[in-house]
């Protein structure tokens, strides 16, 4: 692990105002929504917490968007404004650069989101037995953060439009097409996360059920992380800097 690039990236990400604002929103929104649900107290709390709060809000929306924003700040901004040259013109193996950049992005995202993955569901369950969904979604979110971040770091290196492509992937591929065609579930980080959560949780099917099995999901999500790391490294080894002339 290259600690110089790691700490530089931590500072680089956290020095941005938009990141700090997004972090506050990512913490407050789920907690406020959980509290509103608790005040209203409609339906089954396990059902609502698993499907609405954790699956629909956190795994589908908050986790990918946070990873997109932070992953892009870790690598994309630097590639775009040319400062990447200061790191790349050094005798540092490219895999070290990718790992250090991604590790910093993952750490910051996890520090903000993982506590929310516990606090928000505990609030909405309001003492009811969650039957393993809190732990299940916690592990799913941790893996999801790794997978989405690696994917967006890869997009930041390999494409010139990481934000647009990232948003397109999350909303169109995983969102729209995921609802229309079942085949896309095998190529969807969201479905892997839900599969992992379901595999760990003991909650009965009538409350929460994922489309993919737990073991398959775990293998697929680890595969995505490994593949994205490999491709990002390869892409960075052949990285070209665009000049102004």
């Amino acid at each position, binding site marked *: 692990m290259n600690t110089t690039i790691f700490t530089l990236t931590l500072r*680089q990400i956290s*020095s941005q105002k938009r990141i700090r604002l997004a972090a506050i929103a990512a913490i407050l929104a789920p907690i406020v929504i959980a509290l509103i649900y608790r005040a209203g107290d409609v339906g089954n709390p396990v059902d609502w917490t698993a499907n609405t709060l954790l699956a629909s809000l956190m795994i589908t929306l908050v986790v990918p968007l946070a990873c997109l924003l932070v992953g892009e700040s870790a690598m994309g901004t630097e590639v775009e404004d040319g400062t990447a*040259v200061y790191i790349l013109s*050094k*005798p540092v*193996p490219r895999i070290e650069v990718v790992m250090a950049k991604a590790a910093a992005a993952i750490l910051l995202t996890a520090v903000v989101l993982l506590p929310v993955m516990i606090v928000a569901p505990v609030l909405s369950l309001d003492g009811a037995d969650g039957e393993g969904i809190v732990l299940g979604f916690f592990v799913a979110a941790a893996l999801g953060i790794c997978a989405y971040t690696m994917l967006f770091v890869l997009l930041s290196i390999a494409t010139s439009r990481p934000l647009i492509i990232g948003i397109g992937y999350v909303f169109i591929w995983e969102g729209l097409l995921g609802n229309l065609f079942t085949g896309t579930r095998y190529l969807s980080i969201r479905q892997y996360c839900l599969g992992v959560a379901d595999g760990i949780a003991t909650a009965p099917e009538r409350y929460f059920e994922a489309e993919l099995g737990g073991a398959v999901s775990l293998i697929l999500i680890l595969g995505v992380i490994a593949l994205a790391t490999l491709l990002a490294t390869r892409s960075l080894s052949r990285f070209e800097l665009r*000049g102004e*002339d």
Partner: protein
Amino acid sequence: MTKKAGSAGAAPIVVDGVSRWYGNVVAVNDVSFTIGPGITALLGPNGAGKTTLLHTIAGFLQASKGAVRILGEPAFGNPAIYGRIGLVPEREAVYSFLTGYEFVLIAARLHRLPDPEEATQRAIRATGMEEFQKRKTGGYSKGMKQRIKVAAGIVHDPAVLLLDEPFNGTDPAQRLQMMELFRKMALQGKCIVVSSHILEEVERLADDIVVIVAGRLAATGDFRAIRRLMTDRPYSFTVRSSDNRGLAVALLADTSVFGAELKGDRLTVQTSLFSEFVRAAPRVARDTGITLRELVPVDESLESVFSYLVAHSSQSRGRG
């Protein structure tokens, strides 16, 4: 130095038939030259392909055709080479949240120097940035940014230093100090390449010159020889007078003039000797009783100097 035996005799930078295009746009077109130790200026108008060429040499662009060797190795996809190369990019962006000291220290650490703090202090001293090292680079002036970028580029004492327009935004005092630094490094046998679009900026600095115009190599070699080529080139003047036709005839009799063209109320005169013509023209006008109203050199821009060099060098290479 174990590497020395292997690369003995070969120039630190060898550019061999390099072309680089982006889609349909050719940025660098079949360029070949070598750069030896000492200071070399890479000169050309803006947009000529200097940055593309420097990035290709530095391994940040892949040549579409041809090959580049730096210290005997290709740089593209070879990050280990950066232990012996320093690159100072043109773009102004630095990590604005870092102080100047931190910025250079990070470079020293990434080079895995045995004593990064000491190397950082040395590089900051060499660029005269001691006074500003504790300030955030985001608040630096252009000249300070240039100098802190140079400090980061030389922190590992590289054998080859590539600088893209390092004098942009610097004041004359800073420029002199930087030139002094480059000269010192050149005396130690380093290979230093400085790109610029301003001839005067580098003519007192560089021993050798590589001129790039519109992606092509226009001239390469000893700076003085090329400077002579530039001063020997023909100059054009536009002349306005009370009798252009009469003046043209009279001027053509003068030895310094070899061409004259009448177009409307404007007379264009070609001469090979700038100062002699400037002295001769009023005298000729007076002798013939013509009133000289205006005498303006038409092509004093650097671009015209460069295009003359292109035409000249392609003629001498028999390309036409």
